[in-house]
């Protein structure tokens, strides 16, 4: 009656792929951080699907930690972005060449 587990994995893979493209191809620090968020979301989808597939709660416990780590990562990442913007006046990673 249910859908195959492979469909859930495929959906998670597509979401991770979208996040990966966003994180590697955009030229804005905020969009790069958004891409990382999308990748974490895809990982959470895969864990929830696996939790349902094997009827085990470990996957859902992992999703709880993924959400907590995403919150920690985003707060620290955005603080660093604000600091960098105040230091250099730009959000383009190619403008950061103070060590050159």
């Amino acid at each position: 009656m249910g859908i195959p587990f492979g469909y859930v994995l495929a959906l998670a893979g597509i979401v991770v792929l979208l996040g990966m493209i966003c994180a590697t191809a955009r030229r804005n620090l905020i969009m790069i951080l958004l891409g990382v968020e999308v990748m974490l979301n895809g990982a959470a989808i895969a864990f929830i699907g696996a939790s349902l597939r094997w009827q085990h709660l470990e996957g859902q416990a992992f999703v709880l930690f993924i959400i907590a780590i995403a919150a920690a990562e985003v707060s620290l990442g955005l603080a660093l972005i604000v600091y960098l913007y105040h230091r250099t006046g730009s959000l383009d990673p190619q403008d950061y060449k103070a060590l050159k």
Partner: protein
Amino acid sequence: MTLFNILFFAIAALIVASSGIAITRRNLVHAVIYLIFGFFGSAFLFYLFGSPFLAALMVIVYAGAIMILFLFIIMMLRVESPEESLFPPRQILPAVLFAAAYVVIGGLLLVNDPSAAAPLAEARTEPAAFGRYIFTNSWLAVEITSLLLLVAIIGALLVGKRPVKEGEE
């Protein structure tokens, strides 16, 4: 085609479409708003897969807190829309190459995986059972995560509060 299947495909289309639109927006505010729709779709998917507690957490933490934090920062920094190309060819080319390799390898893995064809049974986790499981089986991870959140708070305060001396426009 049961209701479960129809809902799954509708939610999957919603997630992929809103994420795809979000990562191609030039305007950051629009990107964040579209991504909020994507995270709502994930919350629906979690609910469909039988974990209402995580669905609520997804709406509250992801769509509610994280994305609003992004919106605050975008509006605080007054980021203007960049005038250069959205995906510069020097960056999109390796990204597309790696994405193609990822798709090929992932597709092969999925096609050849015998456990991928197993249909999902419907199940539902009560929040009380989930909480009992978390606090008996992975209580140490909960403590470590709380410590991590504390470190993130302190770090964000330290980085954000530092007075800016040079480079201020």
